[in-house]
C-alpha cells in the first residue's frame, strides 16, 4: 500500500474509515516489509529521545558550542509562577520546543523532525499535550505517524531543506506536520488534519533561512517556538471547522515554488536576513554570544 499525495491519502482514509496514522503505519509495514511491533518499537525509541530532549534543559541548561544560545527553555519554564501570558499549555509547548533546540546546539541527542533545525516543534506539542491531557504512549505514537505522513508528502512533493527552500520548508513543514498530528489526537477528521496542515504552511509561507554564523541556533530556536504556536493555532482553527480554500497538495507545491524563488542569500547561506545584519556578521566573526 502506498500513497503519493494528500488527495490519495484522504481517499484511502475515507474508503477504509481509518485515521491518517493508520494509513502511515500500514504503508510502513508494507514497504518496510515488517510487522507493527517492529515499527512501534522504533517509534518508542523516537519518543524516548524526544522526551529526554524536551525535559533535560529545564533542569540542566547548557550553552551552545558558540555561546549564542542556552538557558532559554529554563527561563520560560521557571517564569511560570505568575499566570503565563500564553496560557499554561502553550507556554509548556514553547519551552519544550526551545529546549530541544538547546539540546541540539549543545551536541545532545535529538530526533530530526523533519530536520535538526526544526526538531523542537513536534515534540514540543506532543509532550505538552501528553502531560496536559494524560495521553498514553500509544496515542502519542499515532501523532508521530500522522506527522510522518504529512512530512513524507512534503519531502516527496516539495522540500524540507532550508538550503533548498528556506525556513518555511523546515519549521513550516514541522508546523504543518504538527498541526495535522494535533488534530488527529484531538479526534478531528483526516480532512481537518489536512486543513490544519494547509493553514500552517500558508501562515509561514516565505519564511527565510538566515542562521547567524551559519549555526543552527539563532533565529532557529525561537522559530521553533513560533512553529509550535502556529501548529496549535491552525489545529484549533481546523477543529472548529475553519477551512483554507487551497488544498494541501497545492499548498505544498506553492511552498516549494516560493522556496525555489528565494534568493541564495536567504537559503541557509548565512548571508542575508538575521545573518546579514551588522550584528549577525559580528557574531559570525566570533565577537558575540555568551552575553
Amino acid at each position, binding site marked *: 500500500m502506498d500513497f503519493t499525495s494528500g488527495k490519495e491519502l484522504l481517499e484511502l482514509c475515507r474508503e477504509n474509515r481509518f485515521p491518517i496514522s493508520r494509513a502511515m503505519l500500514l504503508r510502513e509495514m508494507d514497504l518496510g516489509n515488517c510487522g507493527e511491533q517492529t515499527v512501534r518499537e522504533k517509534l518508542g525509541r523516537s519518543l524516548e529521545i524526544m522526551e529526554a530532549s524536551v525535559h533535560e534543559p529545564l533542569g540542566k541548561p547548557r550553552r551552545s558550542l558558540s555561546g549564542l544560545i542556552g538557558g532559554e527553555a529554563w527561563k520560560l519554564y521557571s517564569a511560570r509562577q505568575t499566570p503565563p501570558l500564553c496560557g499554561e499549555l502553550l507556554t509548556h509547548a514553547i519551552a519544550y520546543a526551545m529546549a530541544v533546540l538547546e539540546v541540539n546546539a549543545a551536541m545532545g541527542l535529538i530526533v530530526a523532525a523533519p530536520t535538526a533545525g526544526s526538531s523542537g516543534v513536534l515534540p514540543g506539542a506532543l509532550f505538552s499535550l501528553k502531560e496536559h491531557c494524560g495521553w498514553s504512549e500509544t496515542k502519542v505514537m499515532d501523532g508521530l*505517524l500522522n506527522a510522518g505522513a504529512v512530512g513524507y508528502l512534503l519531502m516527496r512533493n516539495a522540500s524540507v531543506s532550508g538550503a533548498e527552500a528556506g525556513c518555511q520548508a523546515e519549521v513550516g513543514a514541522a508546523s504543518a506536520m504538527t498541526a495535522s498530528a494535533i488534530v488527529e489526537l484531538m479526534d478531528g477528521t483526516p480532512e481537518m488534519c489536512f486543513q490544519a496542515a494547509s493553514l500552517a504552511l500558508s501562515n509561514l509561507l516565505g519564511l527565510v533561512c538566515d542562521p547567524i554564523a551559519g549555526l543552527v541556533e539563532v533565529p532557529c530556536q525561537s522559530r521553533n517556538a513560533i512553529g509550535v504556536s502556529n501548529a496549535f493555532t491552525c489545529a484549533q482553527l481546523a477543529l472548529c471547522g475553519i477551512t483554507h480554500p487551497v488544498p494541501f497538495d497545492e499548498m505544498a507545491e506553492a511552498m516549494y515554488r516560493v522556496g525555489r524563488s528565494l534568493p541564495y542569500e536567504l537559503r541557509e547561506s548565512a548571508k542575508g536576513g538575521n545573518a546579514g545584519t551588522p550584528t549577525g556578521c559580528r557574531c559570525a566573526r566570533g565577537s558575540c554570544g555568551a552575553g
Partner: protein
Amino acid sequence: MNYISVFDVIGPNMIGPSSSHTAGAVNIALMAYRLFQKPIAKAVFTLYGSFAQTGRGHGTDKALLGGIQGFATDDVRIRDSYALADAAGLSYRFIWDETTKTNHPNTVDIYLESPSGETQTIRGESVGGGKIRIVLINGIEVVFTGLYSTLIIKQADRPGVVAHVTQVLSRHGVNIAFMRLYRDYKGGTGYLIVESDENIPDYFLEEIRTNPLVHEIMLIQI
C-alpha cells in the same frame, strides 16, 4: 531503501546540531572506518567548502573523529570524541581548506593509517538529511551511498573478474540492485561496486577471493 520511510521524516536520531554538518560527517567517517577493516593508528581529515567554513561551530570535527572510532550518528560519545581518541592513542589532524573548490560544498577527505602502515583515503560528500555519498577511494572515482548492502571489490582491470563475481552472487541467489565498475586506467586498478536491497551474506566472500585478480573485498551491510 527505495522509499521514504516514516523514520526518514521522524529521524534520523542524531547528535546535533546539523544533519548535514554533524550527522552526515559521522556517516562519512563511519563508512571510512568500516571500509578500512583494520585498527587505526593515524587519521587526517581535510575539510572543504562549507565543512571548512562552519565545521567548528557544527562540531563537524568531533563528528568525524567519532565516526572513525565506530560511533553512529546517535552515539552520545561523539561529544567526547577528542578525549576518547587521545585515550585510545589515536593520532589525528584536521586541515581546514577553505580555498580548494570541490563538486559539493560539504566535502571531506579522510586518510587512515594502520599501525603496520597500510593506508586508505576516501572522499565523502554530505548531501543533506544525514545522507552521504562516497566519491573517491584511493584516488579512484566511485559513487555509492551506503543505503544498500554494498560489496566493494578492488581488482586488477583484466577480463573475467566481473563475470566471476556475478556468477558467485547468482549461485547464492543475491539480487543485484546496482552494479558499477570504476578504474584508474586501462589495465590498472579497478573497483567493482555491487549494491543489493538484501543483506549480502559474507560466507561467500571467500569464493570471490579465489580469483587471483581480486585484491581486496569490502562489505558494508545495511
